[in-house]
Structure formats: structure tokens, C-alpha cells
């Protein structure tokens, strides 16, 4: 069974939401430098932030892949009638 990725727009929206959760977690530890905020920032915050960036890269890679496929499928200019 072939795994189908969601649309680029959807991937990017999920990445945005994840980053919007990660950013306050990272910043919270600056205002309250105690055990739990710092641990959350360094683990959950970093993890979600990395995941959101990875999703962005997946979206970009997929767009590039699709673009390349379209270019290779296009007939060469000299073969046109």
C-alpha cells in the first residue's frame, strides 16, 4: 500500500500550529527558569520545533519532486509539431 502524504498546504498548516505550540514553550523557560519550564523547553519545545521544521522541509522536498516530475514529463521543444 502506498502512503499518501497530505497536501502541501495541510502539511504547512500543521507545521505552523506545531511551531506556535513550541515557541511559547521555549520562551516560557526564559521568564521562569525553574526545573519544569526549562525541562519542557529543552525537550517538548525543541522536539515540536524540530518536527515543524522537518514538516516544512518535507513540503518543500515534495514540491521540488513534483516540479521535477512535471518537467521530465513535458515533451522536449524540438519534438513539437
Amino acid at each position, binding site marked *: 500500500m502506498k502512503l499518501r502524504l497530505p497536501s*502541501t*498546504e495541510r502539511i*504547512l*498548516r500543521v*507545521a*505552523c*500550529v506545531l*511551531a*506556535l505550540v*513550541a*515557541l*511559547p514553550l*521555549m*520562551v*516560557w*523557560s*526564559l*521568564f*521562569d*527558569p*525553574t*526545573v*519544569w519550564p*526549562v*525541562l519542557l*523547553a*529543552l525537550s517538548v*519545545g*525543541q522536539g515540536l*520545533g524540530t518536527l*515543524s*521544521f522537518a*514538516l*516544512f522541509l518535507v*513540503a*518543500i522536498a515534495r*514540491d521540488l519532486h513534483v516540479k521535477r516530475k512535471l518537467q521530465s514529463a513535458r515533451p522536449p521543444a524540438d519534438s513539437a509539431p
Partner: protein
Amino acid sequence: MTAGHDLGAMGWVSVASAAAAAVILLVHLLRRREVTAATRVWLLLGLGVLPIVTAGTANIEGFEATQSRKFCGSCHVMTPHAEDSGDPKSVSLAAVHARNEYFGQNNCYTCHKDYGMYGYVLTKAGGMRHVYLYLTEYRNMPLAESKPSIRILAPLPNASCMHCHTTTAPHWLAVPDHASALDAVKSGEMSCASAGCHGFAHPMTKLGKELELDGGPRP
């Protein structure tokens, strides 16, 4: 949020980049536009560059925060230690050292850290063990129970004291007890922070059976 915590320059960079990233992401989510080349560049900033700046600066600030007394005292079982060493009237070894500028707000870390090339990493790895033990054993333990039962894993090595207090200076050796105990101090057989020498580092260090073995509380 803790009132009165001053953000350093690094902290402000972190907050500013997080705010800028959040604005870009919210605009993208709310406008629901087609993904164009310009959108990708903006999202590269909002999902990549700016969060990386936020994470990097927040990491540096976070790791620095883990060296502070406030951080160490944020687990309730450590509050008596932190409060004592921050008390200007206390004469405990920890408090006396905390009043020294070199130790200051980072006095827990300065004494308890591992010295050496990988000292920082080893100390932080040991700290993760503390977090694990706190979560699994001490989280709900009342102070009355934790004070006499929580013990340092291994005795504080004299090398930590000798990092500042040289054992070779003439005025140090001029103290008769120092001169006679030099070998025992260097080998770790005798602790600088023991009842017969400079006293325990924290007033609640020995409240259990050790106190009886030591012959009762020190004045």
C-alpha cells in the same frame, strides 16, 4: 511566570525572534493563501530561521539557568538548602560561600559541579538523575521526611574545596590541623566539610542517624 526575573540580551533576542516567527505563522494560518515562492520564503523564516534563533538563545539561557540556586531550589525538597544558603544571617558553610561573589546566585552549582574537561556535561547528566529520582520517589514527600532522609550520592570531594582553597599556600599549612591532616584531606579520607573540621555544608545535612553518630547537633 516569576516576577522580577531579568532577561539578558540573549533572552530578549529569543523573545523577539519567537514573536516575529509567531506573527509570520499566524498571518499564514489566518490568510489561507495559495503557497507561492514568497510564502515559502516567509515560512522558511517563520518555521526555520527564527525558531532556530529562538531555540539556540533559549538553550543557552536555559543551560545557564540550570546553574542558578533558584533552579536547584525549585524542587521542594531542596528549598531548605536553597533558602539557607541565600539567607544573609546564616553561618552555614553553604551560606558563607554564597555570599562570596565568585559563588553568588550559582553557589549550588559551583560547589557541586564536577570539575574537569567534561565536568559540565557530567554534572548535567547527574542532574537528570535527580529529576528522575524526584519524579519517582520524592515528589510527594513532605519536607519533614525528606530533610533527614535525602543524602548526597557520594561525599563532596575535597577537590571541590581545593579548587579555590589551595593546600600548598604557607598560610594554609600554617594552620596546625591543616598540616596534620594534609594527607587525609588529599586522599579524601577526611572531609573538609565534616563535624570536626569546617562543619557540614548545610544545617540540615545531618538530621538523621548520622547526627547521633556525630555526637549531637553542633551549636
